[in-house]
């Protein structure tokens, strides 16, 4: 009976979250809800979540943008399938979310941002999210949070591999190949992928008129295709792992990728195919060489890495005599070198860790038509230390400090102080709390972009507090994990690009932004029995409010939610497994997002209406000799919703994908 009651209570908690999400109220009352939570003890006050391996396996043919948007608290702002996608973690700006891969940073040193649409999930074995100031333990300047990606060698099999072929609507096809060979000492892992989509779905364009009957006033909208919206990605990930002894690990990871795409015209464009013809090409080369040694009481880790990115963007028009002429022809190149040293040891229930980094950035940015550009180098040494200590049986504390320099500037000190209390000794029930200060140095574009870069910018500084509860319970064959946490963060000197009377935009330390919110998640799974299932539900309440000084009495942005940040977001992923069959269902929700800083309601173009998206998948696997075959059918946008993620960019209706995977 107790088991059933626990499941029902846990379900009610999760349903309550979703119900609130659908009411569109900005106020969330949670006091009447009984909460279960789970907390890995080693984190000691940090808020760290991990994407489920089942999710990574399901989304292997997708980008990290779609995966995070559907399975995490992070809001992804996308311009459409295959188009630029940036992240907002806890209501912060895109450059406040850092992404690391095997220890090196993937954010562009020019813009500070990451395009999540070109990171293939197929290249990732593990995704960990460090929420808010918990990121201080891994990097600097991630005021919103840190997304840590990594690859993990499989030492169990000497020879394994897989081939996957996908076909989808709108001329979409993708191929994946993985091969792993080795023995107990040495291992080579190769991954190759290719994705292409014409992305040319049809839609009724309600943003323009074909014609209007001037007698009756009846209006006719054209049916159009989403032309010039294709994307193409291919890449190689080659890794070598060497384990000469049980205590020494040497790894080399190399990631090469080329991505190209065309961004379609806005739905309001009626220039024909004459204007806004664009090509966005990115070539990426990344590499990490790492060595790790384990001692009886600690470990030593050192790595060097490189992240090279070469992007070209052209925007051209078809002028007289059918000539194509570039309106924009920009090239940006960046090379980032990362060097990391870390030593940690544990004694008397105390873990001490020290780390030092020396990072070097070289960038080149040039626009040929207007003849603007800049070149800059940046040197970034940093140092951090942390002490995690267990006090008595139930208390654990975590103190981390980090200091860095950018060229000759000393960036304000970062610190994290966290406490964790094991509430019930017999159960996995934890209370955590933390106070932290973080800072982010301006990106190179913010300081030197031509025209408008502002070399006098100050670092953005945040101060935050958090509290949360975690609970985990295993009831025979049903596991329940749950977590609820609240945070309050203030970012001072928030950098914002603003127009000037000179026509171009200039960044300044304009705003003070407070970000307050709630994050909950619930996971219920039954791993045994005839019918197994897994339910994972997330909900986030995000109030990200501008509290900067108003420019003048007409400025209505004070006290308003930042544009494009949803107050409520939720998602739920269900998987039901029966013998060799499995059915999955995904529901994804965002409340309305304003497109203006003043949160006006003049027309439906001042906000994007709430987003409800449903997708379903059916999967079956069977073995032919020693080859396992997985067949996977997915239906996206199940209810054929008309929706948009940004203004005047129609999104696809119901569409399909079939994946066949052969593994041995």
């Amino acid at each position, binding site marked *: 009976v107790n088991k059933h009651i626990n499941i029902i209570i846990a379900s009610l908690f999760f349903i309550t979250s979703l119900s609130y999400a659908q009411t569109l109220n900005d106020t969330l009352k949670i006091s009447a809800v009984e909460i279960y939570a789970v907390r890995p003890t080693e984190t000691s006050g940090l808020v760290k979540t991990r994407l489920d391996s089942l999710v990574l396996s399901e989304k292997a043919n997708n980008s990290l943008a779609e995966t995070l948007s559907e399975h995490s608290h992070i809001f992804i702002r996308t311009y459409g399938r295959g188009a630029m996608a940036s992240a907002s973690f806890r209501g912060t700006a895109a450059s406040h979310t850092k992404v690391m891969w095997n220890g090196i940073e993937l954010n562009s040193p020019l813009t500070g941002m990451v395009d999540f649409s070109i990171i293939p999930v197929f290249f990732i074995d593990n995704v960990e999210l460090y929420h808010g100031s918990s990121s201080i333990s891994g990097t600097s300047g991630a005021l919103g949070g840190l997304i840590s990606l990594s690859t993990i060698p499989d030492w169990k099999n000497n020879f394994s591999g897989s081939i996957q072929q996908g076909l989808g609507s709108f001329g979409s096809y993708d191929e994946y190949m993985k091969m792993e060979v080795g023995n107990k000492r040495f291992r080579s892992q190769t991954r190759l992928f290719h994705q292409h989509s014409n992305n040319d779905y049809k839609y009724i364009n309600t943003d*323009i008129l074909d014609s209007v009957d001037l007698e009756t006033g009846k209006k006719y909208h054209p049916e159009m295709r989403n032309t010039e919206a294709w994307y193409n990605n291919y890449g190689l990930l080659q890794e070598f792992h060497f384990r000469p002894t049980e205590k020494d690990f040497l790894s080399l990871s190399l990631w090469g990728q080329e991505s190209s795409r065309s961004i379609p015209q806005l739905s309001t464009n*009626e*220039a024909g195919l004459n204007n806004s013809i664009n090509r966005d090409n990115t070539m990426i080369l990344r590499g990490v060489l790492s060595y790790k040694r384990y001692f009886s009481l600690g470990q030593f880790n050192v790595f060097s890495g490189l992240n090279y990115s070469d992007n070209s963007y052209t925007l051209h028009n078809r002028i007289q005599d059918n000539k194509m002429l570039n309106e924009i022809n920009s090239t940006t190149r960046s090379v980032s070198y990362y060097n990391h040293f870390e030593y940690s040891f544990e004694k008397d229930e105390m873990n001490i860790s020290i780390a030092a980094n020396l990072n070097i950035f070289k960038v080149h940015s040039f626009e040929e038509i*207007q003849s603007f550009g800049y070149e800059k180098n940046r040197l970034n040494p940093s140092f951090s230390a942390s002490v995690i200590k267990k006090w008595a049986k139930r208390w654990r504390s975590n103190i981390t400090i980090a200091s860095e320099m950018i060229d000759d500037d000393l960036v304000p000190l970062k610190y994290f102080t966290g406490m964790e209390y094991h509430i019930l000794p017999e159960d996995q029930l934890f209370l955590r709390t933390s106070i932290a200060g973080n800072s982010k140095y301006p990106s190179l574009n913010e300081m030197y972009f031509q025209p408008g870069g502002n070399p006098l910018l100050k670092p953005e500084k945040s101060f935050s507090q958090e509290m949360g509860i975690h609970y985990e319970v295993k009831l025979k064959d049903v596991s329940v994990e749950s977590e609820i946490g609240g945070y309050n963060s203030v970012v001072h000197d928030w950098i914002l690009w603003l127009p000037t009377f000179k026509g171009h935009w200039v960044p300044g330390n304009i705003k003070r932004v407070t970000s307050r919110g709630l994050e909950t998640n619930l996971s219920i799974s039954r791993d045994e029995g005839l019918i197994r299932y897994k339910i994972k539900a997330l909900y986030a309440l995000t109030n990200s409010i501008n509290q900067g000084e*108003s420019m003048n009495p007409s*400025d209505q942005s004070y006290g308003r939610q930042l544009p494009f940040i949803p107050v409520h977001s939720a998602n*739920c992923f269900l998987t039901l497994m029966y013998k060799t069959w499995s059915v999955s269902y995904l529901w994804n929700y965002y409340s309305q997002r304003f497109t203006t800083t003043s949160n006006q309601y003049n027309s439906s173009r001042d906000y994007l209406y709430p987003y409800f998206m449903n997708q379903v998948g059916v999967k079956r696997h069977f073995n032919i000799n020693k080859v396992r075959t997985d067949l996977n059918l997915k239906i996206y946008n199940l209810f054929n919703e008309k929706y948009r993620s940004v203004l005047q960019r129609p999104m696809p209706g119901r569409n399909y994908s079939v994946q066949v995977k052969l593994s041995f």
Partner: protein
Amino acid sequence: MRKGIRKYHLQYLPFIITMTFFSSCMNDEKWNDRNKPNLSVGEVMNDGVIILNEGNFMYGNASLTYYNPVTKKSVNDVFYKQNGIPLGDVAHSAGFFNGELFVVVNNSGKIITLNMGRYPSLYAFEYTHKITGFISPRYIHFFDDRKAYVTDLYARQIYIVYPAQYKIKGEININNGNVEFYQHSAEQIIVHGDFVFINCYSFDNSILVIDSKSDKVVDSIQVLAQPNSMVMDRYDKLWVLCDGGYQGSNFLNTYPGLIRIDPETRTIEKIFIFSGDDWPSDLSINGSKDTLFYLNKDIWRMPVNATNLPDLPFISASDRSGTKLFYSLGIDPINSEIYAGDAIDHVQNGTIYRFSAQAVPIDTIPAGIIPGYICFVRID
């Protein structure tokens, strides 16, 4: 097996309950604001000011604001409310012709026409026709119902439009073959006799002269870098305001300047040089065409017969309440009242400040995002 399932049925309860939440309620039409203003043409054409709000580049949220200076009432987003479709991306300028308002929508490559009396059964601002196929149209000037010129930022040609048929019927080539700075771009149009003067703004320094009889470029006048606006005064002198270009660019970078040109001889008669930190724009003229106005952070006024640039602004952008970001300027041709658009942070609805000819504040008008062009209906 049946027993097994029944025995554990409560374990599936969370799964079943969860499924009931997968509702959907997105519907584009449902969210469209259909609160039609249904303004009569008579009301609008009697006394009206129409403000074109550019909207954000690549957002497609341009809009129109209608303002009645007598009642001081305004209707924001009047085009969308009347027609249920967005105006487009970057509404740049407009012109009245034959009972219709031709709105040039720059980054949508089109001109949309709205009823202003041509169709008696329709309300004001009701969609009537469109002219499509431009690359980046900027301004329109009508000669008659068979001919109008449309300038374009990136087409390297001036379009000849047939207004009565809502079609492009020809082009005037203005391509100078300069790939680096995409010349020539074409902006405002001023007619003097049979000749048309067009300023080439973006990374350019030319005023093109076109013979409107032959539709050919017959001359060009070199001015300072980036001539952004022009007016003709009561003495038939052409005034050109140049912002001087961008520091840091390899393109010609000069001081900003105000230039007087004799359109008969096509020679420069006077040059007033600004300081290097200035960025003058939006040259306008009053109804009697004897006083120039322009923006340069503040609003400035200068008689056409002045010998120097003014020392003090006519209306300051800054006061104790804060700083306005003047983005557009319009002078009422009847009473010389001043309308100045404040785009604030460019990501929220802007404001139009209305002043008397003596700079006394009269009204503060709510507008749309980036109010960039102000039309006075009464002149047409």
